[in-house]
């Protein structure tokens, strides 16, 4: 009796949820006004120039170990950040520089962490893949593929528990989407209706393995369906489409309807890390994405077409961004290395 009573509402609920998720489709790209276009342009350019500089510093030996550049994927974090409000969180994997810049963390602090200096966000203890900012609600930077997904789910739980209406953007890649704990997290998030947006940055390659070689279901927006988590596929190279999807997902989460999945279809221009010669794809493929879908060029073209900015004005923005990045790079090269005693601070005894 009791079982039947419990079953009945669950069944009817399942029906309506299934209908809901299949009815969802990606919203049309927003029309940006002039200031939005300029903000997006500047934000994406900052990430690109920062990453180019990081690549140079790596080549010069200032950055050791691992360094994963975000070049090509700038529209994803830039567009999504435009949908957030104070207190919303981000957590991601190891390709994290763009997320931190989008969350307004200081370029100096990020670059100095890459070079392992005192002024780095983790005082040189974390490096490229592991840094955080409580102040800016950035929860890292995680080096283990997929591990941050459970953490992001927990952050969303904390939001609910504290009865704020903040959402947690939990980023992971197409590769991480095959980790078991992702699905354990999906189940909990849907079960408890947690305000978490799972952003799957599908850049087509898990290091050197193309999506089709590692994933039985390559439509990642469907990955949550058996947990009744709705998902949509988004053109992650178009910052307006990203923002539209972000608005929709944020509203969904804030209104207590539980998690949502956004599959951002994007592309990384550089290798997986600095040591990856990227032999698993053709140069033509990369060139085609660059010339036809570049997120920054798209905004630039609209700004010029609508007479919202001249070439000179855009150059001035580039100059301003380059100065910020040059200052960060100078700082990251001259800031002292941490004292040896720092090895023994922030330790669990």
């Amino acid at each position, binding site marked *: 009796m009791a079982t039947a009573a419990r079953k009945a509402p669950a069944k009817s609920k399942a029906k309506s949820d299934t209908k809901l998720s299949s009815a969802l489709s990606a919203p049309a790209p927003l029309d940006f006004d002039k200031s939005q276009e300029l903000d997006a342009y500047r934000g994406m350019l900052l990430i690109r120039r920062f990453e180019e500089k990081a690549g140079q510093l790596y080549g010069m030996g200032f950055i050791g170990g691992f360094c994963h550049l975000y070049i090509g994927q700038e529209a994803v974090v830039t567009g999504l950040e435009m949908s957030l409000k104070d207190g919303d969180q981000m957590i991601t994997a190891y390709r994290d520089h763009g997320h931190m810049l989008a969350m307004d963390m200081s370029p100096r602090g990020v670059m100095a962490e890459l070079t392992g200096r005192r002024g*780095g966000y983790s005082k040189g*203890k*974390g490096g490229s893949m*592991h840094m955080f900012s409580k102040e800016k609600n950035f929860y890292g930077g995680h080096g283990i593929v997929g591990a941050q997904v459970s953490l992001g789910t927990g952050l969303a739980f904390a939001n609910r528990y504290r009865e704020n209406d903040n959402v947690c953007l939990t980023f992971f890649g197409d*590769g991480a989407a095959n980790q078991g704990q992702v699905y354990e997290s999906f189940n909990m998030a849907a079960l408890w209706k947690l305000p978490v947006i799972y952003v799957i940055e599908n850049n087509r390659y898990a290091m050197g*393995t193309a999506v089709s070689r590692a994933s039985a279901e390559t439509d990642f927006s469907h990955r949550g369906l058996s947990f009744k988590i709705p998902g949509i596929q988004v053109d992650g190279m178009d910052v307006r489409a990203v923002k539209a999807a972000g608005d929709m997902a944020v509203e969904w989460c804030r209104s207590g309807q539980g998690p949502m999945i956004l599959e951002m279809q994007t592309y990384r221009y550089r290798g997986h890390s600095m040591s990856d010669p990227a032999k698993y794809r053709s140069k033509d493929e990369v060139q085609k994405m660059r010339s036809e879908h570049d997120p920054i060029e798209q905004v630039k073209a609209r700004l010029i077409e609508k007479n919202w900015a001249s070439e000179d004005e855009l150059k001035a923005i580039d100059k301003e961004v380059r100065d910020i990045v040059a200052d960060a790079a100078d700082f990251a090269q001259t800031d002292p290395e941490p004292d040896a005693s720092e090895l023994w601070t922030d330790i669990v005894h």
Partner: protein
Amino acid sequence: MTRRTMIEAIRDAIDVSMDRDEKVVVFGEDVGFFGGVFRCTEGLQKKYGTHRCFDTPISETGIVGVAIGMGAYGLRPVAEIQFADYVYPGYDQIVSEAARLRHRSAGDFTAPLVIRMPCGGGIFGGQTHSQSPEALFTHVAGLKTVIPSNPYDAKGLLISAIEDDDPIIFLEPKRLYNGPFNGHHDQPVVPWSKHDLGETPDGHYTVPIGKAAVRREGSALTVLAYGTMVHVALTAAEETGIDAEVIDLRTLVPLDVETIVASVSKTGRCVVVHEATRTSGFGAELAAQVQERCFYHLEAPVLRVTGWDTPYPHAQEWNYFPGPDRVGRALKQAMEG
């Protein structure tokens, strides 16, 4: 005989094994098409086909679990975990299933799998690409843990591991892939092509699991080391001028106690060296073995030189890594003690 890097030796061991036994299958993240992040499986998919050398999703629990199932049903899976630091999601499968299958089926089933994983630091990998988790495996009854220090051993031990009927954790010190790194990070590393132990026989040969090798004979004290630290210890002996006997354990479980006891009984002093953190590290087991078996031969306390009990650092890598200076100081201390 061919001069091989450790990467080439490992690849050759897998190649030889796949060629001899069609039950050998090789898989992991980026292992097939890409050839492995450190290139240890390059060309094998082309040679043996996608059914024998293939990519997996990024699912360490699944990789280990699937390998156990394959092994239980007669295959000889060689699974790669891309970095030892990534093995933790698969740890439950390793401990609860692989290590216990033989016992709980009363010998009906075994888990003849090899789980290869690059380990250790020295490449600025920070806390998630530098760890030495060997003690997590040596503590588990039912697993064998192997860690070569050179191409000759890497090939011979890996072939032995693939032919073994029980689960083997095969740790590959990644800093040694291209040369015998001795801890002097500011000096160039001699490539394996110029090192005697880069010389590896072609075709099939084995190095027995459970046998240590004496890398340097000496009478003053015994150094117990494995992996990268073998080369660091040899350098420390040279630089301090102390006539140390350096033993390369090669296999941690089963441990070659006989070789250890013979050496310490002769020298009366012992220093244990490893990269991993100190507390409950494998060095603690070694020190306990030595004091239990050689107590009346000892003329000084058994010393340990290890990584610190901290997360593996980023900027402070060379303060953490127990290099030749730190090992040298311990050798001197053991001589005075």
